[in-house]
């Protein structure tokens, strides 16, 4: 669901195909019959934007028919935990949870917490974005539980009530999915889960690019926990990410709200005035996040070196504090308003790759200067003369630097792939001409800036002055023409971490300290370079067809599967012989198996929780989810999310339909950008009656910079097109390959119509809703050019992870051309 | 007929251009003229022999552009000699290349021998030409000439282009057309040089026989081809085919020769001339229209499926 894996991750899809040939069932739930659907055993149509209704239907199916994995759910999830008395479910409140403030459009999630003594960290946890990873937990102590699951405020009972109306009939009404198909999916999933079998769910931006994206993934998480599919081989929820190192750029990260390794970014709003306050409020007593101070201090030591001392809070104040939402979407709006003066773009292409392309390009005209770094001339770099707006260059003030850069085979470095695997790539040749690696560009820019500020005494410049910036290799490599290339391995070592005193690389993050004696750039990567000459990301021991632990390095600590403690029963024995992965070896007194255990290695299954302990000591030997405060998988999220503790069906911000489940139409906390250049259609807007969804095809890549300059790919998908069903085509008098105009409240574009039975109309209570599909790869540079689907997309933000909604919005179409 | 993959053709469009039908036409005419002349040499009266011997000049002249045309049509003309790299009669084109290579010198030698005999060619070259064993040259030339005239249709037919391959008679058709045009060329030159009426009547009879044969084979070809022949019998190539190849090329000369059968002197000569010209032109029309219509046929998915079903 939410992924077109065969098309967008064809090599990844090699493995589901192998599984299919061994008897596995592939189910593809998608609005379009895609190449993934063609390879699936079962294709299930679903209207774009209704995923939570579908997953909620499955949850309800499992709960109401008592098909959940009892032993697993009782032991490993928070099903038995009791929730706060103040909690009011969306079910009883028209689709809105307790704690909602209509004025600010946000939730105070105190009422979602576990029942029990006042919990000091409740408030702060909400601020941890965690970027879809692990939210830190509010619980100081293990929460109150009712192992019979009968307590009306137990998570289990709340869950049952919340999803009671998500019946197969409701799924059919909301999703347009035929009831019999939905039931078939439910049946396959349930039969394929349990002790002997596991099911996996794969998703991609089909889920995340919705105004409640994180909640869709949460819904899948709930389902997988109920079925006992988490932490087990063949189970899990797979995020299929879209760029070579998008996981790495999330880990490190180049994201505004996080510091390396998912440490929350200090913020004025959260009141992170001092390091001490920041650490107190960010760290949690229970679970692995209790170690946050060690990671934070080590990070500061890595950045500021000897200048980071206990007395100056290890340089904490040199790190800027957030004053709001500085995400890409919000920044684009600010840029369009002239508030951003300088913009540096590394291998990205917002002019046609980001939502509301017209606004994005206008924003570029407002800049004083723009630095674009790429292998090819991008739409972003060329906006001033080539944009469809037809601006006169003489009207555009932006000073532009287009810097040529290197491809991966032209530099050393590491990509982190979608499964958290770090793989080092070796330099094969020098980049051509004046092209330089991004590492070179950033490093030498840093040197120049440090030189410019060398003599400054202003406090604001001291961070830069003290920034450790020493990455040139000791000996230049005579093989290469470019002699001043910084060493990627030196940077990787800094990320791995070392002791401050003797600069010895640390073996993993367990060695990090909060007293300034260790430095570590990215704690989760610690262990990637545990010793001189031992680059684990560069390990290339041929795959063994199973866990292949010796290929690259997987964070954390080379664990290939997170929470794999859940692959055994509470007593530490594999749930079944077929599905064994790690297990407790009483003879050795430790966890062993095919993978590194994602659990304290010698903590026996029967270890009781230490009530007075901290960190994972607060957990028992059978609490597998070590990053959680209570060590349990969260069916109900007492904190960490900004849009509710339980996934709830809302309609997309633009939808032709009314929410059939709740009076509340759409997400109460999704961020809209009500601006003149970003109008949004009201629900049921008759002028824009069709749903449109955007996507990639195999033959092209994102905004096209990496594919539309390659003839071999361009010829395979040369033109922009819209996929429409024969039914809609007939209604509109459109023939295959006709030119059509697709319009939304933001803009209109022209492209070819690809009339295909692979698109279908959806029926909702007898009403026919048409959906059209738009790939978004084209632009105005490259060997092949074409209209830009993103011009039609509204600016908006999902509240947790600030992603726009482009998988479901509304449009109209007509036969013909723009002019 | 079941549908295939969209409307994509099953086979590829031939890449050859106008040089190929032009060569088939000239080569065929040369062969026909040579054979006609040789038949006259062998079986005819002295008048016949004298009048028909001009056919050797026709043959030699028509052969001059053949090799250049063939070479010009190659994708890599610089490698024309690779045609003779191996001997592979299984490949009609290889067979044709060897045949042309063998026939051309013989035809030139025989023409030179005739020229020397009539005193047209003197000096050492003349003397040399007189040494040509004419009987042997005629026999060998006829064998090679008939091969040259006969292989071109087989070459086109030895493909998977429905129009060319469906019927088994294209080789025979081209052979008949070649002989008709060759004998017509002999008639033509004989008539222009004022050959005796008897000889002209005999040549006309021979040419008419070829035309009649051509019409018979063509009828068989069209019947065997059936629906597949549509690109030829309808559309763009219908006019050149029906009016040019069939009308001008066979029916008109046949009728003219019947008319001429009872005429003598200048009238006979004029009618023979016109008939000969018609036959020769029709022969070109036949090759060209079938050749070009073959390209359209190559795009006919249904015809390809028909060709490849039992």
């Amino acid at each position, binding site marked *: 669901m939410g992924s077109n894996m065969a098309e967008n991750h064809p090599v990844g899809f090699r493995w589901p195909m192998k599984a299919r040939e061994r008897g596995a069932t592939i189910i593809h739930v998608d609005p379009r019959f895609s*190449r993934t659907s063609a390879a699936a055993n079962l294709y299930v149509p679903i209207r774009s934007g209704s995923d939570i209704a579908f997953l909620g239907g499955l949850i309800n199916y499992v709960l109401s028919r008592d098909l959940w994995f009892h032993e697993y759910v009782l032991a490993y999830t928070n099903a038995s935990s009791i929730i706060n008395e103040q909690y009011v479910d969306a079910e009883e409140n028209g689709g809105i949870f307790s704690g909602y403030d209509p004025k600010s459009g946000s939730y105070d999630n105190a009422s979602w917490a576990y029942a029990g003594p006042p919990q000091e960290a409740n408030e702060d946890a909400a601020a941890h974005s965690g970027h879809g990873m692990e939210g830190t937990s509010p619980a100081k102590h293990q929460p109150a539980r009712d192992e019979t699951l009968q307590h009306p405020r137990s998570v289990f009972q709340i869950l049952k009530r919340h999803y009671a109306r998500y019946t197969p009939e409701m799924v059919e009404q909301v999703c347009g999915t035929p009831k019999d198909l939905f039931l078939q999916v439910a049946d396959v999933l349930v039969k394929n889960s349990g002790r002997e079998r596991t099911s996996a769910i794969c998703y991609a931006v089909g889920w995340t690019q919705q105004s409640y994206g994180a909640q869709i993934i949460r819904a899948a998480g709930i389902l997988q926990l109920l079925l006992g599919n988490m932490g087990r081989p063949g189970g899990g929820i797979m995020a299929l990410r879209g760029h070579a190192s998008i996981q790495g750029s999330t880990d490190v990260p180049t994201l505004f709200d996080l510091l390396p390794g998912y440490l929350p970014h200090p913020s004025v709003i959260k009141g992170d005035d001092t390091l001490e306050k920041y650490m107190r409020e960010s760290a949690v007593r229970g679970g692995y996040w209790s170690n946050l101070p060690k990671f934070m201090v080590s990070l500061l030591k890595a950045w500021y070196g000897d200048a980071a001392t206990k007395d100056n809070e290890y340089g904490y104040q040199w790190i800027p504090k957030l004053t709001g939402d500085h995400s890409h979407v919000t920044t684009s709006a600010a840029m369009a308003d002239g508030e951003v003066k300088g913009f540096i773009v590394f291998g990205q292409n917002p002019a046609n790759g980001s939502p509301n392309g017209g606004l994005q390009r206008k924003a570029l005209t407002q800049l004083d200067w723009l630095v674009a770094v790429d292998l090819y001339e991008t739409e972003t770099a060329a906006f001033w003369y080539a944009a469809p707006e037809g601006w006169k260059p003489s009207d555009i003030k932006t000073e532009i630097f287009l810097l040529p850069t290197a491809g991966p085979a032209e530099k050393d470095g590491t990509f982190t792939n979608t499964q958290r695997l770090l793989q080092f790539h070796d330099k094969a040749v020098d980049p051509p001409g004046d092209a330089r690696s991004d590492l070179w560009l950033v490093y030498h820019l840093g040197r120049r800036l440090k030189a410019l500020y060398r003599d400054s005494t202003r406090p604001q410049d001291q961070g830069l002055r003290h920034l450790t910036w020493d990455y040139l290799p000791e000996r230049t490599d005579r093989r290469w023409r470019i002699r001043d290339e910084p060493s990627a391995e030196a940077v990787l070592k800094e990320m791995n971490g070392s002791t401050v005193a003797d600069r010895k690389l640390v073996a993993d993050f367990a060695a990090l300290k909060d007293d300034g004696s260790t430095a570590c750039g990215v704690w989760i990567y610690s262990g990637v370079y545990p010793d001189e000459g031992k680059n684990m990301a560069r390990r290339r021991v041929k795959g063994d067809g199973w866990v292949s632990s010796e290929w690259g390095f997987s964070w954390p600590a080379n664990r290939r599967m997170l929470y794999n403690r859940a692959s055994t029963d509470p007593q530490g024995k594999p749930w079944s012989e077929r599905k064994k992965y790690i297990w407790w070896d009483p003879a050795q007194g430790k966890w062993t198996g095919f993978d590194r255990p994602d659990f304290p290695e010698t903590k026996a299954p029967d270890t009781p929780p230490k009530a007075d302990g901290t960190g994972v000591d607060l957990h028992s030997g059978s609490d597998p989810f070590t990053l959680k405060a209570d060590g349990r998988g969260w069916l109900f999220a007492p904190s960490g999310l900004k849009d509710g503790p339980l996934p709830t069906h809302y309609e997309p911000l633009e939808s032709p339909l009314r929410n059939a489940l709740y009076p509340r139409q759409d997400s109460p906390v999704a961020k809209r950008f009500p601006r003149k250049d970003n109008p949004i259609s009201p629900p049921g807007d008759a002028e824009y009656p069709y749903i449109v969804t955007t996507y990639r095809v195999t033959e092209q890549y994102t905004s096209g910079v990496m594919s539309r300059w390659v003839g071999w790919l361009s010829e395979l998908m040369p033109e922009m097109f819209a996929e429409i069903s024969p039914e809609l085509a007939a209604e509109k008098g459109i023939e295959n390959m006709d030119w059509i105009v697709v319009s939304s409240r933001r803009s209109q574009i022209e492209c070819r119509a690809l009339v295909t*039975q692979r698109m279908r109309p959806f029926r909702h209570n007898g009403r026919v809703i048409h959906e059209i599909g738009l790939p978004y790869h084209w632009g105005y540079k490259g060997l092949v050019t074409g209209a830009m689907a993103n011009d039609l997309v509204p600016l908006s933000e999902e509240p947790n992870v600030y992603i726009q909604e482009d998988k479901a919005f509304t449009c109209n179409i007509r036969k013909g051309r723009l002019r | 007929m079941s549908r295939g993959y969209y409307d*994509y053709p*099953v086979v590829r469009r031939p890449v050859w251009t106008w040089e190929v039908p032009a060569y088939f036409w000239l080569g065929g005419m040369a062969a026909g003229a040579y054979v006609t002349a040789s038949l006259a040499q062998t079986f005819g009266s002295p008048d016949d022999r004298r009048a028909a011997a001009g056919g050797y000049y026709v043959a030699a002249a028509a052969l001059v552009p053949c090799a250049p045309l063939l070479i010009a049509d190659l994708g890599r003309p610089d490698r024309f000699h690779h045609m003779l790299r191996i001997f592979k009669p299984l490949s009609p084109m290889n067979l044709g290349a060897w045949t042309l290579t063998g026939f051309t010198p013989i035809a030139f030698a025989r023409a030179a021998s005739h020229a020397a005999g009539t005193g047209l060619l003197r000096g050492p070259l003349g003397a040399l030409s007189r040494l040509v064993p004419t009987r042997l040259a005629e026999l060998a030339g006829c064998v090679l000439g008939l091969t040259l005239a006969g292989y071109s249709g087989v070459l086109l037919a030895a493909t998977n282009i429905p129009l060319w391959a469906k019927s088994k008679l294209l080789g025979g058709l081209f052979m008949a057309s070649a002989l008709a045009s060759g004998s017509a060329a002999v008639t033509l030159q004989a008539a222009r040089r004022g050959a005796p009426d008897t000889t002209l009547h005999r040549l006309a009879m021979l040419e008419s026989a070829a035309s009649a044969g051509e019409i018979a084979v063509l009828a068989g070809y069209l019947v065997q081809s059936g629906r597949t022949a549509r690109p030829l019998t309808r559309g763009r190539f219908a006019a050149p085919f029906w009016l040019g190849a069939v009308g001008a090329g066979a029916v008109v000369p046949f009728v003219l020769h019947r008319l001429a059968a009872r005429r003598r002197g200048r009238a006979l000569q004029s009618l023979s001339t016109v008939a000969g010209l018609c036959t020769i032109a029709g022969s070109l029309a036949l090759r060209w229209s079938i050749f070009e219509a073959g390209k359209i046929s190559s795009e006919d998915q249904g015809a390809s499926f028909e060709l490849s079903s039992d």
Partner: protein
Amino acid sequence: MIDTYKRLMNVEPPPPAKKPRGFFTDTSLCIGCKACEVACKQWNRLPADGFAMTGNSYDNTGSLGATTWRHVQFIEQAKANSSRQDQRWLMMSDVCKHCANAACLEACPTGALIRTEYDTVYVQQDICNGCGFCVPACPFGVIDRAPKHGQFEPGTAHKCTLCYDRLKDDMTPACAKSCPTASIQFGDVEELQQRARRRLAELKARGETKAELYGMPEGKEAAEVGPLHAFFLLLDRPQTYNLPELPRLPRKTMAQRYGWSAAVGVGFALVGALVFGRRR
């Protein structure tokens, strides 16, 4: 003299025969990613040959040709009702069949087209003179002549080489190597045929009633062109994939064609003898 001829005509003795190699393209595993098309162009340095959308599903390649040696077909099938009953999207990576009796090879007058030691059909680029005869000879529309003034070996004939160069180092052909789902399998032809038979039985047992093999020795399609060394497992009738039911080998009817031709010639000679001899 012979040496001069050999040099002029570029004639060398062939290497000893090896085990026949080929492709088994199992369309039931194809996901239509076109990796084969690109990997082939990359390895063989073939140019892109046109940026035109066809509107025929996701196939913007159209056909095999001089600069396209793998071509993925996309066949959309569904009952034309709103529930899209029996919806299928068939994908098939087409390629030169490397026929046991190859029409192109038999047509070739220069010996440029040869059967290699791996029993594959290969165009020798230093021999081919671009006569173009192989183009209409092929019953599958595979081989084509590059434009005379193109950027890529102007004027000579091209088609899949089964990566003849790679075979020499025991490397898998580029398309088969890249194929992420093992739809394109490379190996010893006999072994591949065994595998294909097993696979067909497996699919039939799973209920794929329309599945069939194309190009096996026992198949009707092998009657004239012989077993295909690049053969296929199809999920529908061959014609659905533009494959002829009974691909024709011109040689099979050539004698008959020459016969008619000769008959006409002999007839003419007889008539000539009669006409001229009658009144001697």
